[in-house]
């Protein structure tokens, strides 16, 4: 499903990923962890095609991201959900619109868009806030909008970058249940996090990044 071969990523003199080899199979649930600045976000962005590797190859569903056209990449992204660490919400659109946009760009029929969006907002507990604008939301509420936007399209791959940093322990549990449901429906899920609580809660593979290398890869 997701394969990285000898991937190198540097920013100027700063070597963030140094010859990384990772293989994540279809339907796996994987945690990525490591200290601040280790390259977790960079790894997820590479998989998403938002960043290009300086060397090496990345294959998603056997498609090489180095050779993909702009329009193919757009189509691929419709199958990938991404929870951004900084949320990336549109401040001038309502919560509802922010979530619905992920379906609208695929050309889904408006009626279905509305139905799926409402349903997902209920799942993350934001139904009462659907008409609010992101700047008027609390940190945790914004994070849940970002999560809703990532999962609303039933992605084949879910990439979540520190998805519970602003959530209280109870909500964290709820969100993890959501992610596991998506995982159980067959999606590949990759979660980058610092939270020991999150990782401890589930028995699964954990990739530990440190100083550009994979420090530990526990299956």
């Amino acid at each position: 499903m997701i394969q990285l071969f000898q991937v190198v990523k540097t920013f100027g003199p700063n070597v963030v990923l140094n010859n990384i080899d990772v293989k994540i199979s279809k339907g796996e649930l994987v945690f990525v962890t490591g200290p601040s600045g280790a390259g977790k976000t960079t790894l997820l962005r590479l998989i998403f095609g938002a960043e290009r590797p300086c060397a090496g190859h990345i294959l998603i569903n056997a498609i090489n991201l180095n050779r993909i056209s702009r329009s193919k990449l757009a189509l691929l992204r419709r199958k990938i959900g991404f929870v951004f660490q900084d949320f990336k919400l549109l401040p001038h659109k309502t919560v509802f619109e922010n979530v619905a946009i992920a379906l609208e760009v695929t050309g889904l029929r408006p009626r279905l868009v509305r139905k799926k969006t409402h349903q997902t907002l209920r799942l993350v507990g934001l139904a009462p806030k659907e008409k609010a604008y992101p700047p008027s939301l609390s940190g945790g509420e914004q994070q849940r909008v970002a999560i809703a936007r990532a999962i609303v399209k039933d992605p084949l791959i879910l990439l979540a970058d520190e998805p519970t940093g602003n959530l209280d322990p109870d909500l964290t549990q709820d969100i993890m249940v959501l992610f596991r449901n998506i995982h159980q429906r067959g999606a590949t899920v990759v979660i980058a996090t610092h939270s020991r609580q999150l990782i401890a809660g589930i028995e699964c593979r954990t990739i530990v990044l440190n100083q550009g290398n994979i420090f530990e890869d526990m299956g």
Partner: protein
Amino acid sequence: MKRNRAVHLLSLGTMVACLLILGAFLILFGNLSNWVGQWGSTLSMSIYLKDGVSDYKRDKIDAFIRALPGARIRRFISKEDAIEELKAALGEEGGFLERLTHNPLPASYEVVFETADSNRMDTEEIKARLLGLDGVADVQHSRQWVKRLEGFLHIVRLVGTVIGGLLCLCVVFMVTNAIKLTIYSRRDEIEILKLVGATDWFVKLPFLLEGAVLGFFGGGLTILALFLGYLGLCSKKIYLLGPTPLEFVFLPGQYVAVFVSVSMVLGIVGSFIAIGRFIEV
């Protein structure tokens, strides 16, 4: 949206300014050609009579003129009329006319030839025949003068095309600028749209539309302003040559449509340039 309103008003204003010059030029040119066309098609001739010509001779001349193909006697100017008109034309400078001991001006006929194509008429031949009549002192006609005006019109058209091209470039530049700014202010939005899987066209289309709308309104407002200006101009009578006031016409209907369409196309071209430079990033 709100943040871009000011930019758009600003560029709309500048655009309208550019288009106004263009439109005013078009109208001016249209009217000039009209006038020249009219003058050209009505060749006019002045036939001066000798002093003290007898009524019998005058009647013969009169009859001869009326027999010429397409000719119409606009008026007969007596010696007295002639001096009065000269006085009126010279105004204060004509003071010396008061001191003339006798009227030196000749009486004359003013004749117009309203043939479909006056160009083919042999004016020199008619002139020679008129001079052959007893009692005719001199004959003058307006042909050379029209020729010179047509040359002038040609130059005006050339200069107009060059200036018009430059102004169109200005309009495109204005729109490009405005759309660039809009794109800049929405770059986060654009990034996010692409991250959720929007195709390039999904992102670009709204900006193209924006450019088209900008162009359309720019053109429309300009036509409106020009028309108001035209009405104002029409309410005044302007005399350039002769005693009849100049007659102004507005841009014909299909020109208005072309004008607005061109302005819209310029808007689209402008936003196209802006998009090309920005969205690929």
